[in-house]
């Protein structure tokens, strides 16, 4: 019985088309997921060029293994799991994590006004600019979190996966996920405290 009431999801249709060897099917899959995968990689690695390399690797790996994808999880979950593994490998390959850490300068040093959380009037141009600035600051702050906790934070709090899903992806107990997430959030809060 189809859980969607007989209507196949677009993701399933794309997968079906890919398995049938229809031209352009994989392009459509990439277009559907590339922003999410790329964002995740960029936030994990704090480096857009490296993020693009890893995102390419993720999709190439998916292309090679999509035939064996069992659809136990959604395609996006599967892709993000691949991305997380690749990013962690990259981070471990870096000779010195500390050297690559983005040091968040004091807002007072940069002469910038203190960060303001987004207000209801988000559509205003000044608010859009502020939101962009906030995203940049937040991404830099994420770069300072321990990578093993960072990817849990990204999956849970940014991508919206449940604790159980994150635990399944990470292969660790739910309780461990929760404790690590709590520590990561507290660390992030501490980093953002001067500006938030």
């Amino acid at each position, binding site marked *: 019985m189809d859980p969607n009431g007989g209507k196949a999801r677009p993701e399933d249709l794309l997968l079906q088309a890919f398995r049938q060897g229809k031209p352009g099917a994989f392009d459509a899959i990439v277009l559907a997921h*590339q922003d999410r995968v*790329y*964002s995740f990689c960029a936030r994990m690695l704090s480096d857009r060029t490296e993020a693009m390399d890893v995102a*390419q690797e993720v*999709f190439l790996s998916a*292309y090679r293994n999509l035939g064996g994808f069992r659809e136990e999880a959604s395609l996006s979950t599967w892709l993000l799991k691949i991305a997380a593994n690749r990013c962690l490998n990259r981070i471990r390959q870096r000779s010195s994590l500390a050297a690559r850490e983005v040091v968040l300068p004091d807002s007072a040093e940069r002469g910038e006004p203190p960060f303001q959380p*987004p207000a209801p009037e988000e559509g205003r141009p000044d608010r859009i600019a502020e939101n962009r600035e906030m995203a940049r600051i937040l991404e830099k702050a994420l770069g300072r979190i321990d990578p093993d906790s960072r990817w849990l934070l990204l999956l849970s*709090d940014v991508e919206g996966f449940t604790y159980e899903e994150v635990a399944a992806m990470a292969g660790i107990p739910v309780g461990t996920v929760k404790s690590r997430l709590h520590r990561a959030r507290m660390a992030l809060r501490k980093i*953002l405290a001067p500006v*938030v």
Partner: protein
Amino acid sequence: MHAHLQDCLRCRAAKEGLEETLMLLRGLPPADAPPELLDGIRRGIAREETPAAPLWKRLFLPAHIKIPLEAAAAVLLFLLVYNAQKEEAPKIIAPPPSARMEASSTAEAGKKMEAAEPAEKKARKAALPPQSGPRREAASQDHAGLQSPQPASQAPPALPAVPAQLASTAGEKIEPPPAVALPQKMEPPSAAGKLSRVARPVASGGEVTIQVAGENRPGMEERIAAAAMRLGGSPQAMPERTVAPEAETDTMIVHLPAESAKPFLAELSKMGTLPAEGLHGWNDLPAGLSREVVAYTVRIRVR
């Protein structure tokens, strides 16, 4: 917990801070992937789908280009190696510099002798009586145009191979060439293949014919040999008397020091008649085994 949060300002502030952080994280918009990402993925897929050619294909295909090229390269390599080995071989038996210097000094001495010769030749030519006839003309041509003292047409086809010099493999000095064993008997011209006198083969060096009366013929070889030995030379062959079909002609070979060439011819002229053709200028040229030794082929003809 709710009651505690309402009472504890510190915990409430922490909770609010965490909620704020969560709100910020959840509000993070996804970044737009760069357009190059899709292109890069397409290129990567294209690379993966192109199967890597096996080694033999990469080596030999396309056959019409690679096989001729590889064959040419193999031939070129072979020739290079062959030439390199060929060039190295003489170096191995070449004498050391000291021996080479000796050789070069000998060559220089030869050049000096050569330079001294023309003046002597001119004087001798002036002393000779004017001659006529086809043989004389041929000889004149030899002098005028040909560099070689012996006409090419007279070059003996079966001359013994005489090495110019022998390099000692010990590398110390150049040994003088040993006496070459000359053929014991010259073949008389056969009736079928009768050669002209000009083309008649000689063993080496110059050639002179002496005509003697029949009664003087016996013991002629011994007299010639004795004359040669008196002048510091040596008879190389004392062939038995050969009766040619059309003329009684015997041949003997004499080696002489170059300076004894003229006296030897004078001695011969006392023993018999030397035809004009026997007094060619080239007869007394040092055309022997070396510049110091003249080899004469003396033909004894009975009148």
